[in-house]
C-alpha cells in the first residue's frame, strides 16, 4: 500500500533508545538484557517505600554525547514525574523530563543531504515488561493473570523527538537508520531493534500536496524493525487518505501496528488519553552539567557517520550508496585506514560493499586489507581469488600472502599466459575466426577456456586484453 498521487505524508518520529550503562538510571542494579526474570532489581527498581532515586552520571554523559552528535543545545534540565497506573511501572509514575529536557533543538542530516529537525532528546527510565496470561490474547483486560519482569524497569532511556520533517516511508527509514548509526557511534546505544533497545513510535498525518497546514495525526506504536516502519507508515498514510477521500475525518488517536495483518488498529482515542499530571520530581535536584564537562565531551566525540560518508566520497571516490552501506556496517574506519596505508581505493570499496557482511569483518587489520587490494591491483591475485582470500582473512585473521600461498594462488607470468592463449587459438580455429570477424561474444568462450586451463589462476582482465591485442 502506498499513498496516492496528489497526497503527501508527514511523519515525525519518537525514538527511544536504551543507554549503554552498567547500572540503571537511578540505582546500582545492573543494566543488561536477558537474565532470569526479576534478578536485576533492588529496592529502587521495585519502587519500595522509602527508596530514593540517585541519577546515574554515565547515563547523563551518554545523553550529552548523543545530544551533541545531534547538534542539540545541552541545557540545565529537571526531571518530572509522569503519573499513570500500570503493573510494570513500579512506582506508578515514570521519572522523565518534561518542561526542560537535557538536549533541545538539534538536527540530523539524511544521507541524501536533507536536514531533519530534532525537537528534543531527553532522559527517562524504562518500564518493566508484562506478560498477560490466559485466553485474552495477551491483553491485560482479558488476562487471567499477569506476570511482570522488572529487570528492564529503571533502565536509562534517551527519547529523541524528531520534528515532522519526514515526507515518506523511505525518509523515515533513513532517519531511523542514520539516528541509529549516530547513537552507536557515540557509544550511547547498541542499536538492537530486535532486542527492543531501539524503539520507534511514529506520528503520521497526510495532506494534499501544496497544503501548508498539517493534517490530524495518529501515533503508531509497536513498530519493531526498519521494515515494519516503512510498512506501517505506508499503511497508515493510505488509510488516512482513504478516510478523507470518503468524506470522513481523521480522529487523533494512538494506533497499534500489527506485524501479522499489516494493519494499524485503534489503541486509544485522544479523549481516552491519560492525564499524566506531570510535576517536578522532588526526589532529584536539577541537572545542570558543568560547561567544561560538556566541552570536554564535545572534544571527545568520534567522527560521525555523516562525516565518515563525506570522507569516503571525497577521498576514495565512493558512490553515496557505497559510503552509506560501509558506514552503516561500521567499516568506514577499516576502509579509510587501509586506503591510508597504500590500499587500492576502488578494490577496498568494492570488497567492503560486497564481501564484508560478516560481523567479524570489523576486526580485519587495515594494513592486511590494504595489501590484499594492492595484490589484486598488481595482478598477483584475480578478483575471484581476492574474494576467497578475503573471506579466509575474516575467518582466520591470517595475512593475505600466506592464505594466497596456501591456496596455490600464484601470479601467472604473462608469457606463460600468452603461450596458453596461443595453444587454445590453435585448437579452436573456427571460433577464433568468428572472434576476428567481430563476434565479441566468442570472447567469453576463450576466457572460459583459459580459466579452465589455468585452474582459475589467470586474471580475467589480462586474458581479455591479450585476446583483443591478438585480434587487431
Amino acid at each position, binding site marked *: 500500500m502506498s499513498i496516492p498521487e496528489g497526497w503527501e505524508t508527514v511523519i515525525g518520529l519518537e525514538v527511544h533508545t536504551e543507554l549503554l550503562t552498567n547500572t540503571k538510571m537511578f540505582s546500582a542494579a545492573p543494566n543488561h538484557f536477558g537474565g532470569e526474570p526479576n534478578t536485576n532489581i533492588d*529496592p529502587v527498581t521495585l519502587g519500595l517505600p*522509602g527508596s*530514593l532515586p540517585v541519577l546515574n552520571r554515565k547515563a547523563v554523559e551518554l545523553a550529552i554525547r548523543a545530544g551533541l552528535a545531534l547538534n542539540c543545545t545541552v541545557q540545565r534540565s529537571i526531571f518530572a514525574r509522569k*503519573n499513570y*497506573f500500570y503493573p510494570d511501572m513500579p512506582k506508578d509514575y515514570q521519572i522523565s523530563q518534561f518542561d526542560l529536557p537535557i538536549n533541545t533543538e538539534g538536527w540530523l542530516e539524511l544521507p541524501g543531504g536533507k536536514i531533519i529537525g530534532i525537537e528534543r532528546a531527553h532522559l527517562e527510565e524504562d518500564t518493566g515488561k508484562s506478560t498477560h496470561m490466559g485466553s485474552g490474547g495477551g491483553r491485560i483486560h482479558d488476562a487471567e493473570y499477569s506476570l511482570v519482569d522488572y529487570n528492564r524497569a529503571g533502565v536509562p532511556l534517551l527519547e529523541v523527538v524528531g520534528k515532522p520533517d519526514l515526507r515518506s516511508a523511505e525518509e523515515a527509514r533513513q532517519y531511523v537508520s542514520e539516528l541509529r548509526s549516530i547513537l552507536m557511534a557515540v557509544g550511547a546505544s547498541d542499536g538492537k531493534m530486535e532486542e527492543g533497545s531501539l524503539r520507534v513510535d511514529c506520528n503520521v498525518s497526510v495532506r494534499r500536496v501544496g497544503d501548508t497546514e498539517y493534517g490530524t495525526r495518529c501515533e503508531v506504536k509497536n513498530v519493531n524493525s526498519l521494515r515494519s516502519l516503512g510498512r506501517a507508515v505506508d499503511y497508515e498514510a493510505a488509510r488516512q487518505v482513504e478516510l478523507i477521500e470518503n468524506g470522513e475525518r481523521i480522529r487523533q488517536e494512538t494506533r497499534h501496528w500489527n506485524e501479522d495483518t499489516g494493519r494499524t488498529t485503534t489503541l486509544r482515542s485522544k479523549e481516552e488519553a491519560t492525564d499524566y*499530571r506531570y*510535576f517536578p520530581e522532588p*526526589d*532529584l535536584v536539577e541537572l545542570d552539567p558543568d560547561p567544561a564537562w560538556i566541552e570536554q565531551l564535545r572534544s571527545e566525540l568520534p567522527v560521525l557517520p555523516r562525516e565518515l560518508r563525506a570522507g569516503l566520497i571525497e577521498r576514495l571516490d565512493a558512490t553515496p550508496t557505497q559510503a552509506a552501506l560501509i558506514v552503516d556496517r561500521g567499516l568506514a574506519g577499516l576502509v579509510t585506514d587501509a586506503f591510508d596505508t597504500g590500499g587500492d581505493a576502488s578494490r577496498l570499496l568494492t570488497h567492503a560493499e560486497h564481501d564484508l557482511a560478516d560481523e567479524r569483518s570489523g576486526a580485519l587489520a587495515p594494513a592486511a586489507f590494504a595489501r590484499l587490494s594492492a595484490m589484486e591491483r598488481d595482478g598477483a591475485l584475480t578478483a575471484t581469488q581476492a574474494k576467497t582470500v578475503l573471506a579466509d582473512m575474516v575467518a582466520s585473521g591470517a595475512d593475505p600472502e600466506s592464505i594466497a600461498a596456501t591456496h596455490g594462488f600464484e601470479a601467472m607470468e604473462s608469457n606463460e599466459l600468452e603461450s596458453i592463449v596461443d595453444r587454445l587459438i590453435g585448437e579452436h580455429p573456427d571460433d577464433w575466426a568468428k572472434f576476428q570477424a567481430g563476434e565479441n561474444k566468442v570472447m567469453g568462450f576463450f576466457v572460459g577456456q583459459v580459466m579452465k586451463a589455468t585452474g582459475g589462476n589467470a586474471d580475467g582482465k589480462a586474458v581479455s586484453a591479450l585476446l583483443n591485442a591478438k585480434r587487431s
Partner: protein
Amino acid sequence: MTATAVETAALVRAGERSAVDALEQSLAVIAAREPELHAFNLVLADEARAAAAAIDTRVAAGEDPGVLAGVPIALKDNMCTRGIPTTCSSRILDGWRPPYDATVVRLLADAGAVMVGKTNLDEFAMGSSTENSAFGPTRNPHDPARVPGGSSGGSAAAVASGMVPVSLGSDTGGSIRQPAALCGVVGVKPTYGLVSRYGLVAFASSLDQIGPFAATVADAALVLEAISGHDPADSTSIPEAAPDLLSRLDDGVSGLRVAVISELMAEGIAPDVAARVRAAADALAAAGATVEEVSIPAIAHGIGAYYILAPAEASSNLSRYDGVRFGLRVDAPTTPEMYDLTRTAGFGDEVKRRIMLGTFALSAGYYDAYYGTAQRVRTLIRGEFDAAYERFDLLLSPTSPTTAFPIGEKTDDPMTMYLNDVCTIPTNLAGHPAISVPYGVGDDGMPIGVQVLAPSLGEVTMFRAAAVLEATLLEATS
C-alpha cells in the same frame, strides 16, 4: 525520672551501667504505660535485649559502641527497618517487611543506640493528632483524654511518658514540633537535607525531614548529631557534615538578634500560648539577646500553599500502593478493579482526601492555578524568611496555636485540624530548621511549646537559644 540519653551513653561507654539495665528500665515503663497510651505499633523487646547485650559485650571487650551506646530509642513507624514490619499506621502495608534499613536506622545502630520499637502515627504522617492511625489513636501522657498531637504522636508520647529518653519522628508540616509542644518535650525539624530521607516512607518529598524528640535539649542535640550528614543515597541530602551542636550548647545567646514573628502572635493564637512566647522572648533578652518583632506577611498563605503542594506530592508518592508488589491486595477480576478495591480498603479517609486533593491540583488545566501558584507562594515565603534572617539570627513563635485538644474534637472538621499547623508549616516550605522547646503550661495545665526558628544550617545557634530557654524554665520552676 528516666536517665537522659547523654547520661546513659556516658555511663554505658564507661562501663558503669549496662545497656541491658537501661533497656529493662525502658521496657518496664513501656509495660506500665503502653496499654493506656498506645504509643507503639510494635515493641521489639527480644531484638532490643539482644542488641543491648551485644553493646555490653563490646564494652566489656574494651570497645566503644558509639555516642549513643545503650540508649533506648523509639522510631516512628514510617522508617524502614530490615525484616521488621513498617506500617505507616496503614492497612495498605499489611504484612510488608522492608528488605533494607533506612539510613537513620543504620546510623543509630552504628552509634550504639538500641531500638525498642516502632511508634504510632497518623496514617502516612497525614494528620495533627495521631487519630488517623489504622491501629487506633495514641493518647497524651499528660491527659489521656487528649491527643498527643501528630503526626509523630507515638514518638512524642513515648518520650513524654518516660518510655524512652529519645525517639525519631518525621516533620512535613510540623509533625515533630507540634506533638513535641503538646506533649511537653523537645522536638527538632532540621534543615531540609541535613538528615537523609533514604528509607523514610515518603509523604511529601520536598518537605519531609527526620528529626529527634528528647526530654532535654542536650539529648536532642546528641541524637541529631548522630543522624546528620551527607548520604549519597538521597539526592536531596546536602554535602555538609553533621553539625557540632553539643560542644556549643552552653555558648548562650548574648549578642544574638532575635525577633518574634508578629503574624504568629495574632488572631487564632490562644492567649496563654502567646503569653509563654512573650515570656520566652523576655528570657532570651535577659540572657543578653536583643529581641524585636518582625513581620513575615507571606506566612498568611502558608497553609494554602502547603495543602496544595503536600497532597500533590503525596498523590504521586502513594500511587505505588497498588496491590501489585507488596502489602495489601484485594483480589478482583481485572487489574483496574484490583487497584480500586485495594486502595479503597487499604487507605483511611484522610489519606484518600489528600490523594484526591493532590490529584486534582496536578490535573491538566488546573496545574498552574494550583500547583504553580503554590510554588510561587513557597518562593515568596522563603524570600521573606531570608530577608528576615539578614536582620535577625533567630525568630521566635508559638509551636502550636493551642494546647492539646480532646480526642475526637476535630476529627470531623479537617479544615480546623489543618489550622493547627499554621506556626510550623512555613518552616517546611522554607526548608529551614526549627525546634520546639517546652516552656511552661497553659490555663488547662497542659504543656506549651515555644518554637525557635533559624536560617538554613543555623542549627548551632538555634540549639544555643533552646538551651537557654530550657535553663531559664528550670530556674523558674525550681
